[in-house]
């Protein structure tokens, strides 16, 4: 594994307590719009990060070159940064203490060799399937198909760890001549689990629902959220409520609320990084072994995620949620959220008791307004429907949701049994594929502001 070899050489260029991390991305993404391929991107790149702790401060440097000279230069930049930082005075970073992992990572855990081939022909066939399904119904197909192999390795002194992962993702948005659209996506470890035709059919069904879109005014409505929408809500909650740094600084939504009820007892939320249903990870950016942590149990706030810095501030132990060696300025975050399934068989059953409400396929442009309140705003997109007398009756114009995520979880009435690994397939910077495992749910009095 390239990453492991480079991490070892990088660490050797630094001080004895230098921590080196290498993340390699080998990815392929095929993009399509209006039933034709538009952009295709193949990336083979890596990032070497060297972090040197000194008097509680951390100097960091990175490069994407792997020759010895470049690594020595990177280590020197990190050392100079650490020394400059230490001149300011002592800080609170306790140093690195990574958990050694034997061998070169477990290729059977979260890794699929066929996916790692990044075969463009497989992608082209998936696009052709999507185009065919959409074309048969007079719809345009838009979306992406993408696969990747990632290597992540770290080294410090004689300790090291490495892991290989694959991920695959496809989303299809079908757009009807009327402008109405439908969405479906799938996230998986193996490309064989991406059913292009099935996704296109799901998206198409939503785009062709009969009836003119109705306009619903601002107000509070009972809402059935599909898993993709629930995933958006939980992703925003992660940053507001489970960030150990924000919590330690009194900015977090669970500040003073651990041990208290913050959601209905139906809600059981954890971070489960070793679960095969997620995109699993063994260690974090500081080499700390990731541990499963219960976040909300039976509706009661239980814990937050920590990296080594936030843990030091809070007097706690790192839970293995560092996003950068020495801690990201934004703090740690869960990467493998799992919301437990409930008793409802599916979305149809969730709609059953709803006299008049809203069915939401997904959310878009969601942003936290006030983190301490977990107040967010987002718009619905690609499949918003009116529920009347227990069933979907017609499309709705998209709505703007402005509500507290913990508030929604406190008004949750039922949760579906089946969970889905959801992701929005956003790959900024060095690819960091992650997803949220969650079911559909129904919540009451969800606030829409437009």
């Amino acid at each position: 594994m390239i990453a492991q070899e480079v991490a070892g050489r990088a660490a050797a260029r630094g001080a004895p307590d230098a921590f080196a991390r290498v993340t390699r991305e080998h990815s392929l993404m095929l993009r399509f719009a209006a039933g034709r391929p538009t952009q295709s991107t193949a990336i083979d790149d890596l990032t070497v990060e060297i972090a040197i702790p000194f008097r509680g401060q951390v100097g960091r440097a990175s490069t994407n070159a792997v020759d010895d000279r470049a690594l020595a230069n990177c280590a020197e930049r990190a050392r100079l940064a650490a020394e400059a930082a230490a001149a300011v005075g002592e800080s609170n970073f306790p140093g690195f203490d990574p958990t050694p992992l034997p061998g070169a990572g477990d290729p059977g855990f979260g890794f699929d060799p066929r996916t790692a081939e990044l075969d463009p022909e497989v992608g082209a066939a998936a696009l052709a399937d999507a185009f065919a399904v959409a074309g048969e119904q007079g719809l345009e197909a838009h979306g992406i198909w993408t696969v990747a192999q990632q290597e992540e390795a770290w080294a410090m002194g004689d300790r090291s760890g490495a892991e290989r992962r694959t991920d695959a993702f496809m989303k299809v948005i079908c757009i009807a001549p009327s402008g109405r659209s439908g969405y479906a996506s799938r996230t998986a470890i193996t490309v064989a689990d991406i059913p292009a035709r099935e996704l296109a059919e799901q998206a198409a069904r939503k785009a062709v629902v009969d009836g003119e879109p109705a306009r619903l005014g601002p107000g509070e409505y009972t809402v059935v959220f599909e898993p993709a929408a629930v995933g958006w809500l939980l992703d925003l909650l992660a940053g507001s409520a489970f960030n150990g740094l924000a919590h330690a600084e009194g900015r977090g939504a669970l500040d003073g609320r651990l041990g208290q009820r913050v959601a209905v007892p139906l809600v059981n939320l954890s971070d489960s990084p070793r679960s095969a249903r997620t995109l699993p990870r063994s260690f974090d950016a500081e080499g700390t072994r990731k541990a499963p942590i219960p976040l909300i149990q039976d509706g009661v706030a239980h814990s937050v995620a920590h990296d080594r810095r936030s843990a030091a501030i809070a007097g706690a132990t790192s839970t293995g949620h560092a996003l950068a060696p020495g801690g990201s300025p934004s703090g740690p975050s869960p990467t493998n959220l799992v919301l437990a399934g409930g008793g409802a068989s599916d979305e149809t059953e969730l709609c059953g008791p709803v006299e008049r409400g809203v069915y939401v396929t997904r959310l878009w442009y969601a942003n936290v307004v006030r983190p301490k309140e977990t107040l967010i705003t987002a718009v619905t997109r690609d499949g918003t429907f009116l529920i009347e007398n227990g069933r979907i009756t017609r499309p709705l114009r998209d709505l703007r949701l402005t509500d507290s995520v913990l508030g929604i979880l406190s008004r949750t009435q039922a949760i579906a049994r089946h969970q889905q690994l959801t992701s929005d397939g956003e790959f900024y910077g060095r690819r960091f594929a992650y997803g949220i495992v969650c079911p559909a749910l129904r919540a009451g009095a969800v606030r829409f502001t437009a």
Partner: protein
Amino acid sequence: MRDLLRDLIDSAQARAGYADARFVRSRVERLSTRNGRLDQLDSDESEGIGIRVRVGGSWGFAAARGTDRADAEDALRRALAIAEAQPSVPDAAPLAPEPPARGEWATPVERDPFNVPVEEKLAILLAADLGLRTDPGVKITLARFSAFQTEKLFANSEGALCEQRITECGGGIAAVAVDGADTQVRSYPASHGGHVAEAGYEHFLALELPGHAPLVASEAAELLRAPACPHGRSTLILAGEQLGLQVHESVGHAVELDRILGREASYAGTSFVPHDGIGSLRFGSERVNVTADATVPGGLGSFRWDDEGVEGRPVPIVRDGVLAGFLSSRETASEIGLERSGGCMRAEGFARQPIVRMTNVNLDPGEAGTLEQLIADTDDGLLIETNRSWSIDDRRLHFQFEGEAAWEIKHGERGRLVRNPSYAGMTPEFWGSCDAVCSPSEWSLISLLDCGKGEPGQVMRVSHGTAPARFRDVEVGVA
């Protein structure tokens, strides 16, 4: 490197109708302090080559890190294989014609920020950080410095060969006041990373962060005690970062031609603006004039050539409230019959392909005098300058923003501070309600450092020039 790019292009031409290659070397330095201690000290470098080919109307793009010839040739092979594997696009439009870009260009810089000792930068940040800790209500203090340097060499199969070196530098401060269930933040000169300009270290010094810190701290603490923004309809004066972000989200993205043509429907979305709306679509009131200009000194959307080799120039976007143009590429311009690309193709680093991005999309100044004169001319309203939260739908129609703070305007005077000021609207109606834009003396650039678009995602730094503007009958207090 020039020879390598030329050779790659020569090789590509045997199988591709068009090809371009970019070598990009990037340097980034980020320093920040938090509560008087170092928070971040990162020094990042990367370099590599991105190769884009067009075969039968289908694009293929592959990237290789470093400068190794064999790796670059392998990237070319992958780009060609990907393009050839895809369904052909027989009716693909030709690229809009463009003379080959030739020459060199660099950001004018007085002092290279990468040559300034870290200790000097840290001293300024720590002084600012100390100044933020002057109010007991403030619990978290932040001071940031950032610098970016990008060297680009571009060649294409039409004979272009040009080189650019772009330097960007800046920073900002923020104070977070915490009291029980409430958290309030104030920033200077802007939130979300402060103000970065295409300039040298002199720009960071000119921000004078330490001098502004005490006021930032006291306003953050004052916000904890300030009345909440009432719900209703109000006159709104937007200035600085908030107005720049309003332009960015509701004008800049809305006039990206790739979105308008549906190319971004799978992610960023589409647009309410039709591709045939030039000259007929009313975008705002007659006071509203917007220009996309890649030649503005200091703007993060400024360059000599875009990443497709098109020379930057001012492009009218809105004239007297009517749509006048788009942000475009050679391909999208050709598709709707424009003679030239708007020169808006930009890529993040070497490993992403260029897509249609904003240059400096600027609200042109008006004739309403200074901000104080505009306030004096306003009987009742709110003034918002700094952003805290933003969201807009996938057609760029319905938006909702929340500022860090607002000031009440009563009888022509700036009044008390208001917390959690939010407002919402529909793009054409909102810009249609603009009845005043301040004069050129008030016009300045703001920066946005994290504009996301594209798949795989690309983050772009952009600037927007604005002078304070007034909007009537806006829904406020919505969040």
